[in-house]
């Protein structure tokens, strides 16, 4: 089709330009949870709801972990400037190493809690430095 290639190239340039403008306008901040209330709200927005009875925030607000009344454990994983809700499978390994929670199913997520990390750990790799 005549004109298709220039049109495609023009569209590509427009895509790159808009993404650059988006970045330049500051829409590149990482997701951050400011408070337990905010985390509670984010957990409650999970499909069908998730009502935490215990929440632990990362010191930098980069993630959060929570447990509900049924003992289910869920994590808020950062994705851009939003969070993704992930419900862990029962017994999913969580370790506390150097006071930092590591979740085997979510290797990119590290949670440095303000409280005792060992409370959330369920594997033998937990240490006593939490």
């Amino acid at each position: 089709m005549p004109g298709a290639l220039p049109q495609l190239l023009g569209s590509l340039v427009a895509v790159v330009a808009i993404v650059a403008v988006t970045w330049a306008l500051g829409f590149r901040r990482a997701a951050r949870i400011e408070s337990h209330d905010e985390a509670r709200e984010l957990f409650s927005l999970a499909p069908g709801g998730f009502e935490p009875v215990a929440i632990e925030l990362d010191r930098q607000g980069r993630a959060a972990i929570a447990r509900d009344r049924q003992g289910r454990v869920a994590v808020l994983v950062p994705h851009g400037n939003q969070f993704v809700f992930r419900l862990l499978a029962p017994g999913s390994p969580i370790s506390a190493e150097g006071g930092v929670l590591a979740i085997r199913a979510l290797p990119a997520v590290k949670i440095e809690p303000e409280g005792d990390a060992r409370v959330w750990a369920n594997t033998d790799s937990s240490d006593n430095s939490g």
Partner: protein
Amino acid sequence: MPFDPVAYAIPVFVALILGELLWSRLRGSHQAYEWRDTGTSLAVGLGSTIAGALTGGLTAALLVWVHGFAPLSIGWVWWAWPLCFVLDDLAYYVFHRSAHRVRWFWASHVNHHSSQHYNLSTALRQSWTGFVAASFVFRLPLALAGFEPGMILACAGINLIYQFWIHTEAVERMPRWFEAVMNTPSHHRVHHAVNARYLDRNYAGVFIIWDRMFGTFAPEDTEDRIRYGLVGQLGSFNLFYVVFHEWIGIARDVWRAPWRHKLAYLWREPGWSHDDSRETSEMIRRRWKSRTPEPNSRDRPVR
């Protein structure tokens, strides 16, 4: 190639996205956009125009072929245009409802819902695989009824253009008469929400009357913060994962399922599983309702 009004609208789309970006920045809505999310949306949009260019001729040929069986030919009379537009919008409603209730069609449509953001760039997350999924079948009855294929495709293009501007949080409510008849940003925010009460609601393209008529309408409740995206958020900006993940999921499920359940993974609703290990939107809604202490009327579809 038939007349494609969408091609002429693209510069306007670009200008409006830039305008919304500036508006969001000035208003301090830091979460309205995310640069990688915008990049994915625009790349999906660009890919869909390429897919459309490759398959648009086949869709047109099919419409012409079916039109040949029409008992009467309506032709290009002026009154056929508004009639075709309204009936095409009804066909869109049926397609869109099927796209949320049948996993085969959902696999093609899901990328439109894959962003956790709701802005004008989200509107451009259009399907790459609509032709493969045979989404065109929903418009064939119009050709069989005697409408000109070129008219049907032009109406479909105008329908798609209309739907662009409703993908925004910049507009709260339109005048009451407009909200009653037309699809609006408020109605479509509900459609993109994954809050249990809003799942599978407001399928309209241009006229919201179809949802009111067929019992799938839900009004936006400003007290209930909307969460956008998918029930199981992707958590990925990868273009190809966004576009093809549900097709891959279908293939995996069909491969693993017992023989008597294999086809059900194609035609049953998203979230269905033969062993009830997953949740459909009805199951999520039921669970949510069971946890709501005092059921109220707000979660019911409103006619």
